[in-house]
């Protein structure tokens, strides 16, 4: 049997011929197989391969009779996992026994590291976004100097002007945060689909943590507000007569 993606890539169907070439021996040994089925294995599966054959056939093709390179065992009672692991090591001292707990520990370590890295990157990006927001708001205030002067001429107070700029900044932060979350979700979906996942499974795989979403939006809004404080303060202090003279 061949993997679905492999079959698609090489245009293989049931009945197609594939040749396995063993080049680890003194001379290349070719073994021909006929495809009898197409198999689909999850992208994240530990045993994912391209061609699946019966064990005796594989042993013959690889010239390794009676040998296996990996054995996947299922322990029915999780409490006996450590004991079974110990027995296996004693029976086959040269083998490496890896339990699900070992894999989980490594995976957890990787995930923790990834999460920490993601947080650090996110914080760095938030800081950059804050600076860009500040620059953007300052430019907007400079561009709108006459408008600010006019608003003051018709009786808007310093606090009115400051409130307006701050509100605009806050809304920009909120909209930016919402767009960022949507882009992040779409990006995660794209990555999963790119590595071979199905849409429905990918959608199940991506979980939206309400707390994380809230924190992300809060950071975006707070960044927006922080970026708006100085431009708003500058606008509020503008002398209306001078602002109106700006060309």
């Amino acid at each position, binding site marked *: 049997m061949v993997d679905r993606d492999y079959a698609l890539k090489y245009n293989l169907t049931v009945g197609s011929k594939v040749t396995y070439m063993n080049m680890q021996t003194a001379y290349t040994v070719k073994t021909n197989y006929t495809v009898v089925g197409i198999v689909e294995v999850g992208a994240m599966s530990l045993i994912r391969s391209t061609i699946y054959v019966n064990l005796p056939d594989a042993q013959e093709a690889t010239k390794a009779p009676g040998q296996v390179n990996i054995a996947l065992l299922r322990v029915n009672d999780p409490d006996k996992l450590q004991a079974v692991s110990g027995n296996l090591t004693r029976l086959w001292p040269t083998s490496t026994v890896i339990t699900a707990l070992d894999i989980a520990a490594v995976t957890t370590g990787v995930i923790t590291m990834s999460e920490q890295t993601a947080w650090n990157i996110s914080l760095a990006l938030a800081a950059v976004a804050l600076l860009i927001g500040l620059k953007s708001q300052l430019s907007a205030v400079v561009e709108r100097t006459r408008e600010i002067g006019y608003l003051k001429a018709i009786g*808007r107070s310093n606090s009115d002007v400051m409130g307006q700029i701050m509100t605009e900044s806050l809304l920009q932060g909120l909209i930016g945060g919402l767009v960022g979350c949507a882009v992040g979700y779409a990006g995660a979906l794209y990555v999963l689909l790119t590595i071979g996942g199905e849409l429905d499974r990918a959608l199940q795989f991506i979980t939206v943590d309400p707390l994380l979403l809230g924190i992300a939006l809060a950071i975006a809004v707070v960044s927006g507000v922080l970026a708006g404080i100085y431009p708003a303060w500058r606008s509020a202090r503008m002398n209306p007569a001078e602002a109106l003279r700006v060309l």
Partner: protein
Amino acid sequence: MPGYMIETSNLSKIYHKGGGDIRALDGVDVEVADGEFLTILGPSGSGKTTLLYMMGALDRPTSGTVILDGSDLSKLSETELVRVRRQKVGFVFQQYNLLPTFSAMENVEATLAPTGMDRQKRVERARELLGLVGLGKRMDHLPSELSGGEQQRVTIARALANDPEILLLDEPTGDLDTTTGKEIMEMIRQANKERGKTVLAVTNAEYVRGYSDRLLYMRDGRLYERGFSELSKESEAR
């Protein structure tokens, strides 16, 4: 004895620029009577706009006083100056200063927002004023969709929105052709006559003089009762 809407006394404004001091106003004494239409003619840089901004509580003088409707502006706090601008003064600028993303209606209505007036009333008021300036059918248009004359009509409606005591016009016809400029001046004259608004216009357009009750001339920060050509002729005669 007529009441004065505005009185200035020995009004001076000095700007401190890099190269030295610029005396924009130099001891200006002027009174504008209640309901009067006064035009100040003068070349660019003569101090007209500075004087207008002082009278409209947009700037503070270096020395001297401005009394607007009985209040000495130099003694008012920033909050009180905001109230003066909101309630007593309506500005018409040469460059319109309309909010570009707001329709004509919204531009007029926005002027009323800080007054706390109910939105429905604000809309009614804006509609009435835009009808008055002949924009009844174009009130939903953005400034970019209006001609210069129409935009200036919006600014007149906007200036009248708060029912101010005085209209301060800074080069109101500066960006308009003569025909449109005269239409605008007719409209302002109408507000002066029919609504009793005191009007002070500063301009360098000679034809504006025909709409005013009184004319003053400004040069180098000083006010004169006679034009410079007349003064030159007198000087030559002597």
